[in-house]
Structure formats: structure tokens, C-alpha cells
């Protein structure tokens, strides 16, 4: 049986983290393809519903990437994202989706290396944790 490959739905802000992913690419840094990127204008526009929907549809992890506090293109969207992630963590933990599966990380446009590191780290962590309890396809394979 092939090794479990986690699916990580990633919401990256257009201005910082997505640009960092672009930089990682142009710098020829390879990061795991488990990260499925959805480009959003700001981490602050990631509605908690997007995260719920991703998990309910079997995502093994959700990674939200935004600008560092103080650097948000829209001044404070990232700070709103942080409060929402805190709320989601409280809610999801009760149902078996712990904070290990929902990550928020600040990755600036210049931090292509950090993007690679975070992607590596999260992929490794989820491989260790195994499939999300809601990931029906992984359960079938196993």
C-alpha cells in the first residue's frame, strides 16, 4: 500500500503568502504537492465556512497563510483571521479535528523558504497523524 498522502487545503493571501509560494517556485525550492493552494485576496476573507466545508469534504488539513501582523495589505484582515481560527479551533477540537489540522501561519512575500518549511512541516505532521476522521477515501484505501 502506498504511503498516505494528506490533502491540505490552503488559503493563501494574494499579497504575502501566495507571493511567497510564487517565490518558492521561481527559486526552484520544491515543496510537497499535498498543499492545494486557493488564492484569496486576504486571509481575512477566509470565512469559517470555507474551513468547515474543506474538513467536511475530507481535507486532512487546512492551512491559512497571511501577512505578518502590521503588514496586511488591508491593514488588519490577518488579525480578524486569527480570531476566527481561534474560534474554529475551539469548535473543531470537540469533534476530533484538533489544532494540528488547522494552521494559520504568517508568511511574508519574501519568505519563500519559510513557505517551503511550513509546507514540509505540515505535511509531515499530517502523515504522522494519519487521515482526517472525515477523509472517506483514505479510509477506503486503508
Amino acid at each position, binding site marked *: 500500500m502506498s504511503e498516505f498522502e494528506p490533502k491540505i487545503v490552503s488559503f493563501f493571501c494574494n499579497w504575502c503568502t501566495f507571493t511567497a509560494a510564487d517565490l518558492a517556485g521561481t527559486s526552484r525550492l520544491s515543496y510537497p504537492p499535498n498543499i492545494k493552494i486557493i488564492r484569496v485576496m486576504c486571509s481575512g476573507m477566509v470565512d*469559517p*465556512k470555507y474551513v*468547515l*466545508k474543506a474538513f*467536511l469534504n475530507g481535507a486532512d488539513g487546512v492551512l491559512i497563510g497571511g501577512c*505578518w*501582523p*502590521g503588514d496586511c495589505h488591508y491593514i*488588519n484582515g490577518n*488579525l*480578524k483571521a*486569527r*480570531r*476566527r*481560527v*481561534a*474560534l*474554529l*479551533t*475551539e*469548535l473543531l*477540537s*470537540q*469533534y*476530533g*479535528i484538533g489544532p494540528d489540522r488547522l*494552521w*494559520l*501561519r*504568517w508568511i511574508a512575500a519574501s519568505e519563500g523558504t519559510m513557505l517551503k518549511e511550513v509546507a514540509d512541516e505540515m505535511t509531515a505532521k499530517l502523515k504522522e497523524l494519519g487521515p482526517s*476522521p*472525515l477523509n*472517506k*477515501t483514505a479510509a477506503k484505501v486503508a
Partner: protein
Amino acid sequence: MSKFTKIAFNKGELNTQLSQLFSDMLENNAVDAVLAPMAQPKKGVMQTLVTSKENLASMDPFAPVMPVNSAKLVSSLTSTPSGKRIAMVLRSCEVRALVELVKLKQANLEDTLLIGMDCHGRYENTDFLKFQTKEGTSEGFLEGALNGKTESDGFDVAGACKICEYPEAPNVDIRLCTIGSGNGTLYLEAVTEKGEEALTKAGTKFADGPGGRADAVKKLAAARAEARDAVFASYREETGDFNALDDKLSACINCYNCRVACPVCYCKECVFVTDTFRHKGEQFINWANSKGTLKMPTDTSFYHLTRITHIAAFCVGCGQCTSACPNDIDVMPIFRTSAEKVQARFEYLAGRSVDEPQPLSVFDSDELMEVTGQVK
């Protein structure tokens, strides 16, 4: 500091005395209107808005029923102000939900005189009708409740009420105190200056309060908090994963009654009735293909989880969601357990204060550092 006045009533006189009090308030221009639970002509007790003292006779605020959480009614009455001062008789959960609506700018306390009644719980609406048929009275219910017995023949107060740690209404101008008052006695407590002024206008003379009330309230609250913790613990035990949540919600028919009944479900239009959730036939087939089976109607857990993200910070635990469910799904613990965690995380308590900002309306750059765990 609170001031009290004692109202002693003989059997069958509680409601007459209360009607008299509100009649005096209207007559002496302390308020222009009264919103209070009143007996309806045939059956039931509903919140009723009255502007003339002649129409107060059927007043029955201590009837053990709460057909809707009145915070929503107060929102209708005050979000575009009428300019009239309205006295409103509310339970603790109604006042606390109202506080949240005020902060959401969906209600306004400017012209209100909030009168909180000590709450011993409510029966489910259909149980209350049985209670009425069997000649149950509010006085009888109060007498039993003060001796720790709320159940009637075959039914008891709602599950939410048994675990409600707020028998006394906070943030009110006047309280109708029964806890620690003794049988056949009601105390009026003027909590704020506004309340004192209204009672003074109505001709009230203040005197000593009921000795031992504070302790009695504390004791009752503690007993209910203990019951709450037990309910929460067993809910958390039962539902450790999404499958267990799905099982709990398996009979859900997406009627959305729980959100209609919820006093703090604040969206003007619920996203679950918009086109976002009007899927194409092909989409359903694809889901059935990928998931193996597709329970319909779909998006049930998604709906309830989304509701948690919206209301967890504001949930006051009134239990109207459970009461509104046509399929007897006890949804209240789903919302209350998450609400407890979320409110603790943000050091917030729904209904505690009008001045405390709601958790998702403010943010700070130097907070919740543990979420990302990153330090620059």
C-alpha cells in the same frame, strides 16, 4: 445600591397585584407601554404589548412558559425607536440575549425599562398547555419551584432551564424577586436609578430587602451550574467525533426552526437559504459518487456547524433551539458546549455587559500568539 419593596399576596392575588403595579406605572406616566406575558383569551400565555391600564388584567409573567425568546420581540420594538418608553418583563436569558442584540445594533435600550423576573424555568410550550388544562397556576408553580420541585404530571421544565446558571436576570432596571422571598411574597428590587424613578412614580415606598436572597440565588445558581457541567461532560463524552455529531443530527430536516427560534442568530438573510446552497442535480450525483452515499437533505452538519461559528460567542443557553426542533433533536448542548469553550477563549460572557465588545468585532496585533506560534 439596590432598594426593595415587599409585595405580600394572598392566594390568587399575585397577578392582580402585578397588574396593579403596572397600571400605576402607566397611570403615573412612568412608562408609555408595557410588554409582559399575558394570558391569551382561550389558552396559552404570550408576550403582549399594552398601552392602556385597562388592558393589564390578564397579566401572568410568572407563567412557566416562554413561547419565544423575547429578545427578538424587543428588537422589533426598538431597532427603529418608537419614542415611547416601554416596560418589558423578561427572563434572564431574554435579557442576556437582548444585550447581545444591542451590541449587534439590532436593538436599542434607550426607551426601555427592563424588568427581570427571577426564573425557575419554563415548560415546553405543549407541556404548558397541559399544565393549564390541569388548572395549574403560576402561583402553584412558584410555590413548588421555591421548594425545589418544578415538575408537574409527567413533565418538567426544559432541559436548558435545569442547567441555567442565571436564575437572576442581570443588566435590568427592576427585578421581580421570588428567590429567597418566602411563600406568598414578592419583592421588587430597584436595581438602577431608572428603575427606582419608575417605581417611585408608581407610588412605591422602599424598605428592607429579603434577607438571605443573595445566598439563595447563589445556591440555586451553583446547583444548576453543577447540573450544567454534568450535561456538558456527558455531551462531550458522547460526541467526540463528526460521526457522532452526524448521528445526533441524523433526523434533521433542514427546517431551520432552530435558527428562527434563536434570539442571537443575527444574519438578516441566512446563507443556507441563498443560491450558494441551491446545488445542481449533477452536483448531488457527484457527491453521491464520491461519498458512496449522500443523505438528503444535504449540508445538515455544515449548517449546524456554521451556526456555531456565528453564535458561539453570543449563545445565552435559552434552549429555544431544542424546543423548536420538530424532530426532538436536543441541539442545545451542541451550541452551549461550543459556546462555553469559545466564550472562555475570548474571556467573554454573552449577556454580561453592554459595554464589553463582542469577540469577533475587535482584534489586536498582540494577542492570541499561540494560534500561529510564530514570533518575529
